[in-house]
């Protein structure tokens, strides 16, 4: 069970490989990775602000909640902050479980909570300047299914 908040890029492939290798006996591994969309070339870059201290705390709580709801043998959350270029990876989650239904549900739960309950704020930079990304109603609605 690992939570990492970092400015540095992470190696998605190496993370997936190491996570799956450590998950022997689990049967099912789900990994998710979120990338900076370039919005057809209009996005020049992104800056992610966060709340050091609370971020780690919030992610650890979300992860503990996932572990209490599903039989997970392992879980991983990696989230970056600072400047990011289009196409770069923002974050990833990984879950391992005996059965795929649990691994999928837990990964979706982690993502839904991460989106709306972890203190990160995205600011986009385009030709017209910079703008804070607005929270989407769908993301708040997504929490209600859990």
């Amino acid at each position, binding site marked *: 069970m690992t939570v990492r908040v970092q400015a540095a890029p992470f190696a998605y492939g190496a993370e997936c490989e190491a996570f799956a290798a450590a998950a022997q006996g689990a049967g099912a591994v789900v990994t998710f990775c*979120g990338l900076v969309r370039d919005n057809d070339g209009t996005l020049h870059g992104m800056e*992610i*602000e*966060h*709340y050091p*201290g*609370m971020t780690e*705390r*919030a992610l650890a709580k979300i992860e503990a909640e996932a572990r209490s709801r599903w039989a997970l043998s392992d879980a991983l959350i990696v*989230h970056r902050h600072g400047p990011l270029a289009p196409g770069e990876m*923002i*974050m990833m989650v990984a879950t391992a479980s005996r059965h795929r239904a649990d691994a999928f549900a837990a990964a979706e739960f982690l*993502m839904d909570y*991460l*989106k*709306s*309950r*972890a*203190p*990160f*704020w*995205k*600011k986009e930079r385009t030709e017209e300047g910079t703008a*804070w*990304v*607005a*929270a989407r109603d769908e*993301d*708040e609605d997504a929490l209600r299914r859990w």
Partner: protein
Amino acid sequence: MKLTVLYFAWLRERIGLPRETVETDAVTVADLIAELSAREERYALAFADLKAVRVALDQDLSDFDAALDGVREIAFFPPMTGG
């Protein structure tokens, strides 16, 4: 009571600073917001639409009715957009 107050994202930009120490007798989060808003227009503007503001007390999400008793760090920020 001495409180560390943190601001993030556009609240930080609108108020013009990331953190400050506030000496206050506010009982609830709402009281503190009223006190800050009365202080200067930049605060009043930042807190004009509270539907767009979230609060954390000692790094846990909370709400405007919550009491400040025993709290050391309070943070204001817009809805989160992680992931």
